[in-house]
């Protein structure tokens, strides 16, 4: 039996991208640069934020914390006297494993956009799904800790390809692990050739100055960088 065919030609993620663009417009109007931080759980996003925010002079920072439940990370950031808003994906958004543009849009009224220059969005810890969903950011940073192994760029290529900077964390543990940095960087360059990278230890502070400088430089620019 013949069934009429209706052409749709709509990207599955188009609706999310449209909302992300609306978010981006709101952020641009307020002159706020937005960074989407992503990583697997426990790679050190919150610790790196704490390390950077302690001495980020001259930059007014706000943080949007994304977690499935709870406000543990938001409490840590709040202790630094930085504007922080917690966004939980459960309840309200079905316990999603990632932030999407709609969720971030719902949090915008609670963000003091007129009082900040830089907004750090700490995404839900997950190497897969957050990479798919634009949320209105200017740039994407991923944190990869050496305890995760050398093969992660090959196993999670979209995450490693979609970011503009990779922060390789926990380098203080290098003497205690069989982690092969050359192999990791080789795999990284095979998946995202030439990706800017920082080697840091949020725990000891090694390399954190460069991370702080990167953020400070970003905040001083007009937010106009296109996200891939």
């Amino acid at each position, binding site marked *: *039996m*013949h*069934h*009429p*065919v*209706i*052409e*749709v*030609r*709509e*990207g*599955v*993620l*188009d*609706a*999310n991208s449209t909302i992300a663009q609306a978010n981006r417009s709101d952020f641009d109007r307020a002159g706020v640069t937005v960074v989407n931080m992503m990583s697997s759980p426990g790679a050190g996003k919150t610790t790196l934020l704490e390390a950077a925010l302690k001495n980020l002079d001259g930059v007014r920072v706000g943080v949007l914390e994304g977690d499935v439940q709870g406000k543990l990370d938001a409490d840590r950031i709040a202790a630094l006297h930085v504007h922080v808003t917690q966004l939980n994906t459960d309840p309200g958004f*079905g316990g*999603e*494993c*990632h932030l*999407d543009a709609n969720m971030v849009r719902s949090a915008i009224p609670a963000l003091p956009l007129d009082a900040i220059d830089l907004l750090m969005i700490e995404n839900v810890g997950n190497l*897969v*799904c957050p*990479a*798919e969903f634009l949320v209105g950011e200017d740039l994407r940073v991923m944190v990869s800790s050496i305890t995760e192994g050398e093969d992660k760029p*090959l196993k999670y*290529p*979209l995450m490693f*390809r979609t970011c503009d900077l990779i922060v390789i964390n926990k380098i203080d543990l290098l003497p205690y692990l069989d982690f092969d940095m050359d192999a990791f960087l080789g795999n990284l*360059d*095979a*998946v*995202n*050739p*030439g990706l800017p990278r920082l080697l840091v230890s949020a725990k000891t502070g090694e390399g954190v100055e460069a991370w702080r400088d990167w953020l400070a430089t970003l905040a001083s620019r007009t937010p106009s960088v296109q996200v891939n």
Partner: protein
Amino acid sequence: MHELSLCNAIVDAVVKHAGGRPVTTVNLRVGRLRQVMPESLEFYFGFVAEGTVCEGACLEQEILPAKLGCSACGHQWEPEWPLFLCPSCDGMQVTVLSGDEFEVESIEIKEATDASPGNRSA
């Protein structure tokens, strides 16, 4: 693992175009570089479609091959692994020619004159 929210997006896109008419088939184009499992999409689509014009519809997925091209030497290849270095010249200026697609291409709807709602042709 985000197939559920992707299926929500698929159903939303279809509902917009179906004009209230029951849908028999949703034709999806999915590139090999996308992070989706076709079996999972099909599984969750059934749940998400319930109570909408998509209820009972088939989700047909056309899987498109991944194809990369090197801007430096012109070499094109279908990668087995998502490696973005040119196998011909080791160059880094690699672009995705196909494999990133993820769209609802078309839908098939039931005619208003169909007498038996459960009857779908093979």
